[in-house]
């Protein structure tokens, strides 16, 4: 069952088309990743889905409601965590949460209880009375997520949740996202961190220059990208000494990489492990590790979008600064 349906959605700013007739659906209970470089149209799409921007054309349906005409009803059941904090610097973490809860019509006792619960869940209970401006970046991001889920939304929109924060905070946030999803919250996540998408998402949509170029599950994306099978053996001998014998015995494989204690082979056919183990045994080499190498999501991203990983990394660093 799909909880978000987007059909032929476009957004233009004057002559510039930021989003070009995109269509996609998000299943109830899944973590859907929207992946693309800076300026691809991720934030514009999230703004249209949450009511901060009006589409030029197209249709949005969220939980059966018209996401354009009934946006105020939609906003009652969605939570939004923007890429930058939008809480009040002068107010304490606790007051920020209580205030956000009141915007959703939560009664005093309920919102105070919920605020305390979330501060504890996000390990911010010790700092709940401190002004928000004194929080570290990671703490700010955690409190912004807490504010986004204060009303127990069915769908949570997360825009770049781990950008610009330290490794430990990013790890905690990934854990929190997984926990929320395990409780049934559908999560729509935009990111240009490939690692986040790979670790968190069930399905991924790639957006490049305002167009959705691919939507698939992470598993299917990997399989599609895998044009050849690659296996790496770690041995106790110099791999270069075994090259000719290996090619002689297995003419269908190609040597991808040789180093003193490692051999990487590839083949368009499936690679059976046992014949190779016997070969190394006959050659008097001890195999300490044998592993199948699968393409990373980074490689899949490069293959689908044609965007070099270095460019993505530069953008990542730029955003951090």
């Amino acid at each position: 069952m799909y909880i978000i349906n987007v059909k032929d959605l476009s957004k233009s700013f004057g002559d510039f088309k930021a989003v070009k007739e995109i269509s996609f659906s998000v299943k109830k209970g899944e973590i859907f990743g929207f992946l693309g470089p800076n300026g691809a149209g991720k934030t514009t799409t999230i703004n249209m889905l949450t009511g901060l921007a009006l589409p030029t054309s197209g249709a949005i349906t969220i939980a059966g409601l018209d996401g354009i005409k009934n946006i105020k009803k939609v906003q009652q059941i969605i939570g939004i965590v923007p890429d930058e904090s939008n809480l009040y610097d002068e107010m304490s973490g606790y007051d920020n949460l209580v205030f956000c809860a009141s915007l959703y019509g939560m009664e005093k006792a309920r919102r105070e209880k919920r605020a305390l619960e979330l501060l504890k869940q996000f390990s911010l209970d010790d700092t709940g009375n401190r002004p928000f401006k004194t929080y570290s970046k990671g703490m700010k991001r955690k409190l912004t997520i807490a504010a986004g889920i204060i009303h127990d939304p069915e769908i949570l929109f997360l825009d770049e949740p781990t950008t610009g924060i330290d490794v430990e905070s990013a790890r905690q946030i990934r854990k929190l996202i997984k926990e929320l999803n395990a409780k049934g919250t559908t999560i729509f996540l935009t990111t240009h961190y490939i690692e986040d998408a790979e670790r968190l998402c069930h399905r991924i949509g790639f957006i490049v220059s305002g167009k959705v170029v691919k939507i698939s599950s992470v598993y299917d994306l990997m399989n599609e990208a895998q044009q050849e099978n690659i296996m790496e053996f770690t041995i106790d001998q110099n791999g270069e000494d075994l090259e000719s014998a290996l090619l002689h015995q297995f003419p269908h494989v190609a040597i991808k990489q040789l180093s003193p204690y490692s051999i990487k082979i590839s083949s368009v056919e499936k690679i059976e492990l046992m014949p190779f183990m016997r070969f190394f045994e006959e050659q008097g080499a001890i195999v300490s590790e044998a592993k199948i190498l699968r393409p990373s999501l980074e490689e899949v991203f490069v293959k689908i979008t044609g965007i070099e990983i270095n460019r993505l990394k530069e953008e990542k660093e730029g955003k951090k600064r």
Partner: protein
Amino acid sequence: MRTSLAFWSILRKDMKNYYLKPPNISWGIIFPISWTLMFFMRSATPVDLRDILPGVMALSVLFGTTSMLAVTITFERRSRSFERLLLAPISLNMLMLAKTTGAIVFGIVNAFIPVIFAFFLTDLSGINWFFTIIGVFLIAVTSTFLGLFIAVSANEVFEAQTFSNFFRFPMMFLCGLFMPMEKLPVFVRPFSYILPLTYGVDILKFSITNTGNFKIWISLIVLLGYSVSLFLVSMYNIRKKWIY
């Protein structure tokens, strides 16, 4: 119920975060005192405090409301916290009414500070308090919505303040606050008639000094018209500029 709860929360938050801060409280007291003293000092003859009261009250409201809107709206837009309000499930009209009510209340309180001082220094008997309160309320509403119109047009707090002065200072001289309109050069009088504060001051003059140029119902209708128009134009601009 849900909307009214959000309305009061936004109003309470603005009061606590902005209006009840010491600098704003001191502004509300010092500003009207300064104007009153200025008129005392520059006058060759003894100034009747009651004569200058409508002008000082109107100026206190005008400066108080427009200055605060520049902060509460433009500053929050800049820091993106206004985005959180736009994403909340309350209508834009209700949201903006909540944001502006704080400034209206602040303006009304500012207006009555010179009255408190005047109470100890001059005779205030015979004042029509009903129309004074109506007049102050309408000046506060019109000035607040003028401030909203300005805040929506500006991106930075300093821009909003500068843009506010473009409206505020001409109003000081053209709206009959301290100089009767009939003493103004003929060619600038049409400008006086198109400025809302002219009508607000006229209501106060009618209620405090029993003078005034217009029939009171004309001033009331004009101010109501300005209030509704400025609010609607601001809403249109917000939808166009902020929900892009």
